[in-house]
């Protein structure tokens, strides 16, 4: 008897014993049907044990109904907790870890430990969540952050396009600006009521090869907790970008470093000097076409010792 046939028989026996004889009769394989019926009789007599319901078929029978998508946000906190505990006990710890509410997550984890120890009872699965399909809900929870970010990107792009037409350059998900009105846009981004990007988290430079240097700004709003990245590309022959050092004071050293390494000039910066290398250093070291100088104050810069390798 094959494995699948065995499973089928077990399923039919269970259904038959639960009163659903139609399912048994509907079975097309004569042998299987007969075996199932014989087993049902035996179980009823008590001469055989009821076989366990096979797992895979269990899910498939439920899956025949259209999978209802459960919005986790609609669950109350207690339901959410019960749902996560059930998920975790069934082995899906990812769902628990993906929970964004720290308190609920901690409570769920504590409860799982207790249930495993036997000091607490397993809570019933909340109804709304029970109906959910086996499609991982954790993925949905995870992707919300990314979705949110895309939304804010699109929103900011649209707002800039309305306010400063022509500043947005062609690009798909990032905010690519032309350097012309960057100072105005930056101060607007910081003060606009619905955005309030009050924190410049990072500013960096990139050499994109060819003739392009890029300056990138990672902005964060402490009020709304959303992030965007602004990119400004300039050519190597004329690398000039308005400085935002007066808007976000932290940009002072960020821009100095980018200037030091890439030679991007930040117009309007009040103290634009090299920050790491000596003032009289030649060239911009992190550019891809950088050639180090021969000597610095009479000291050889490239390696001069021979025979060490």
């Amino acid at each position: 008897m094959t494995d699948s046939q065995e499973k089928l028989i077990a399923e039919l026996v269970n259904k038959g014993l639960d009163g659903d004889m139609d399912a048994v009769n509907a079975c097309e394989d004569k042998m299987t049907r007969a075996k199932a019926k014989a087993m049902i009789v035996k179980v009823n007599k008590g001469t055989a044990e009821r076989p366990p319901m096979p797992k895979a078929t269990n899910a498939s029978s439920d899956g025949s109904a259209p999978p209802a998508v459960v919005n986790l946000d609609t669950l109350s906190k207690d339901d959410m907790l019960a749902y996560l505990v059930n998920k975790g006990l069934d082995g899906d710890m990812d769902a628990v870890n993906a929970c964004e509410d720290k308190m609920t997550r901690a409570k769920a984890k504590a409860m799982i430990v207790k249930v495993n120890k036997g000091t607490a009872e397993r809570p019933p699965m909340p109804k709304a969540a029970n109906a959910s399909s086996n499609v991982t809900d954790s993925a949905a929870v995870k992707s919300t952050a990314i979705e949110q970010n895309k939304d804010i990107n699109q929103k900011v792009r649209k707002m800039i396009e309305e306010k400063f037409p022509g500043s947005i350059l062609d690009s798909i998900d990032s905010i690519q600006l032309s350097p012309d009105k960057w100072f105005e846009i930056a101060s607007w981004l910081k003060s606009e009521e619905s955005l309030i990007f009050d924190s410049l988290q990072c500013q960096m430079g990139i050499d994109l090869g060819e003739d392009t240097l890029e300056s990138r700004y990672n902005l964060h709003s402490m009020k709304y907790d959303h992030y965007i990245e602004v990119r400004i590309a300039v050519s190597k022959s004329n690398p000039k970008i308005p400085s935002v050092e007066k808007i976000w004071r932290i940009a002072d050293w960020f821009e100095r470093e980018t200037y030091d390494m890439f030679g991007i000039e930040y117009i309007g910066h009040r103290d634009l000097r090299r920050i790491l290398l000596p003032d009289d250093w030649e060239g911009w070291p992190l550019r891809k076409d950088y050639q180090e100088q021969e000597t610095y104050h009479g000291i050889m810069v490239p390696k001069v010792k021979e025979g060490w390798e």
Partner: protein
Amino acid sequence: MGLLTNRFQDNIIVEKLDKLLSWSRSTSPWFFQFGTACCAIEMMAAAASRHDMMRIGAIPRSSPRQADVMIVAGTVTMKMAIRVKKLYEQMADPKYVIAMGSCATSGGPYWQHGYHVLKGVDIVIPVDVYVPGCPPRPESLIEGMLKLQEQILQERPLTRKMA
């Protein structure tokens, strides 16, 4: 010796002034307390109570004028090389240099591609002892210091060198 015989007890030693000088120099190699990178942490450990470099006479001094030995502890960048040279020039003779760690001896991990790192401090100042390691353990540094002491002990500062 006849004059001095039996005039004093056993608490007097007769030695050449030349040797006495080099002995006293070798047993008090006061080193210049400055670090250029992470090796300085090991130098501090060597000077602190567990390894206690002071027991061999090496006392950290914060001024180049009071120091006999310069321990170049760490990466020397081009920007720092000029300063290191200046500090070395400010030290009074006789002066010695220990290059501590890979960076100070050869440029270390910046050997091939570090455009901003001096490929060994011996390019700008003369080095007496090289201590390898990245960073060397305090024991290594003490070993280096003992080697330097041996070297100083061989010197005869008053003897005229044969040309």
